[in-house]
């Protein structure tokens, strides 16, 4: 069945009430019955929940074949915990048919690809999928289609009971002996633990894995001991060098700076750019550089930013410290400046993934967002964005908060160079739709700006400010005139991943890749 972004969704996926994507805000006003976990009572006072090993923790939580284990990705590419837990479960306990439900997965998790090929891991639910895992899934080795969700779609699915977590594993930079966790104060600090919060509340069992045990009580706790069954102390939960980078630097690349300046110009031309406005930006070159130019316009008009959300990095913390932004609220920290600031700098707070972006709760932060500036691997003439599959059709990205912030914000700006090497970023049809075009408002490239025709009000703003803009079709033609018109990527029929829209409908599917041949 064809959905609202023109993608053909196989009928066999449309079971148990699953629907195809119908457009933005389709589920508004509907009721949901929240799922609840089945948890164990610890009525008798316990001195400590520390167990000797991951195996003991797994046993204590009744780990068995077919279970769903959840993980969060604050340790990013430095994470050791996913591999450690899966190794204990599969190689030491001999478990099989396991499902991994992670907030995101990356190159650090390459070893999981082996467990997929051996058929020990049969399901993956995640935002990001990359590296060898992306390749084996794209080659059709996973038993069931991977389910890809945004950061807001995941807590929605957990609350609705579409993902039932048997055991949630919390990678905690610090924990006390009963499982109060924080993202700071240890040797593998990551700052916010926002993505782990919903998991801990909805999982049947919760295991804390830490490499820094601190005195009770570890306060203020991001994940609370009241939800934790066991605590495991290991040598190291991750590689600090890969968890948080040194301070994120603002790009010096003149092309990035030119695009960033144009993003700031577009923002300043809209009526939402006024005292107390709200903002989120990605950490890509031009997105981050937009901060710099925005500050100039804020000074000129004598206005301040009310609040900023996101994945946070140094430049935003800097603005908070200078008093240019009132509050910063974050689910994840990208660099050491942000890690060292959360819950320390006045006005810098932590939030859960649900509070950040869940479309089914009663009002996530993204719904109050004025502007979001985002990147794209590809954007097509329908303003649909792909941030998941590469130009060869292989899974190697993550929707993250992209679809959530795009849908919630009043003005969503995509900033990307027109071409990357030989790849046309602006194209006729993206390989996979990860953010639907009805949520995307403006495209800024190094060859010009295009406004979504669904937003005549923004077109008027740009015209009034004298900002030149062109049609997205003309940008696509410009791109093709440089790199040539690409052949469509060839796929087999077999669906290897289902891309859920944030509201739970099906936005797109990813099919198994076909070996390339020169034949037509």
């Amino acid at each position: 069945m064809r959905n609202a972004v023109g993608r053909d969704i196989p009928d066999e996926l449309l079971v148990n009430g699953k629907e195809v994507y119908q457009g933005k805000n389709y589920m508004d006003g509907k009721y949901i019955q929240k799922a609840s976990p089945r948890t164990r009572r610890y009525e008798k006072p316990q001195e400590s929940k520390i167990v000797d090993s991951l195996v003991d923790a797994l046993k204590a939580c009744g780990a068995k074949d077919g279970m769903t284990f959840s993980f969060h990705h604050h340790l990013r590419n430095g994470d050791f915990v996913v591999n450690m837990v899966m190794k204990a479960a599969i190689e030491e306990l001999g478990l099989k048919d396991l499902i991994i439900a992670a907030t995101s997965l990356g190159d650090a998790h390459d070893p999981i690809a082996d467990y997929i090929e051996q058929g020990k891991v049969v399901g993956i639910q995640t935002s990001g999928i990359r590296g060898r895992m992306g390749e084996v899934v794209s080659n059709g080795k996973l038993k069931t289609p991977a389910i890809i969700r945004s950061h807001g779609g995941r807590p929605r699915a957990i609350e609705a009971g579409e993902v039932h977590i048997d055991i949630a594993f919390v990678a905690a930079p610090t924990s006390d002996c009963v499982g109060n966790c924080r993202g700071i104060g240890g040797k593998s600090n990551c700052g916010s633990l926002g993505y782990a919060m919903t998991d801990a509340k909805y999982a049947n069992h919760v295991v804390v894995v830490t490499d820094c045990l601190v005195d009770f009580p570890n306060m203020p706790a991001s994940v609370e001991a009241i939800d934790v069954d066991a605590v495991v102390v290991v040598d190291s939960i991750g590689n600090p060098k890969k968890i948080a980078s040194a301070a994120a630097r603002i790009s010096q690349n003149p092309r990035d700076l030119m695009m960033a300046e144009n993003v700031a110009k577009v923002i300043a031309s809209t009526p939402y750019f006024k005292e107390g406005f709200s903002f989120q930006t990605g950490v890509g070159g031009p997105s981050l550089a937009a901060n710099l130019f925005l500050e100039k316009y804020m000074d000129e008009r004598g206005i301040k930013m009310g609040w900023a959300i996101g994945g946070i990095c140094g430049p935003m913390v800097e603005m908070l410290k200078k008093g240019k932004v009132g509050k910063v609220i974050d689910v994840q920290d990208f660099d050491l400046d942000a890690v060292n600031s959360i819950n320390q700098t006045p006005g810098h707070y932590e939030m859960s993934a649900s509070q950040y972006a869940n479309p089914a709760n009663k009002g996530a932060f993204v719904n109050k967002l004025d502007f979001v500036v985002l990147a794209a691997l590809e954007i097509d003439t329908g303003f649909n964005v792909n941030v998941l599959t590469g130009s060869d059709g292989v899974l190697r990205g993550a929707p993250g908060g992209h679809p959530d912030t795009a849908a919630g914000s009043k003005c969503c700006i995509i900033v990307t160079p027109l071409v990357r090497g030989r790849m046309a970023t602006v194209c006729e049809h993206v390989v996979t739709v990860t953010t639907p075009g009805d949520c995307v408002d403006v495209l800024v490239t190094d060859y010009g700006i295009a406004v979504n025709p669904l937003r005549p009000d923004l077109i008027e703003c740009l015209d009034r400010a004298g900002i030149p803009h062109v049609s997205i079709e003309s940008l696509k033609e410009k791109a093709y005139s440089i790199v040539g018109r690409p052949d469509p990527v060839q796929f087999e029929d077999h669906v290897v991943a289902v891309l859920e829209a944030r509201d739970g409908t099906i936005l797109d599917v990813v099919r198994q890749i076909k070996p390339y041949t020169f034949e037509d």
Partner: protein
Amino acid sequence: MQIEKSAMAGTLESSDALVTVEPGNQGIELEISSSVMNQYGRQIRATVLETLERLEVKSGHVTVVDKGALDCTLKARVECAVFRSCDKSAAGIPWGGVIR
């Protein structure tokens, strides 16, 4: 032109291609690998074959390791490799003739 000995042109940098030509007598034998194979494999092949035809190269073994080079880059790398293979790259390149 004739490929008289093995020669190379280009690099493995992003947006470039490494072209190797070797003598042969069974027509053009072309091997292509590319980081953008799925979307541009056929165009890369067409560009390389057109360039060889323009240079009147009738036989040889040609290997292209492409890293997302544009057509103009591919042409230049193929031309350079062919001229190097017959020691004609130092002087007397027919600018404005077959090289344009």
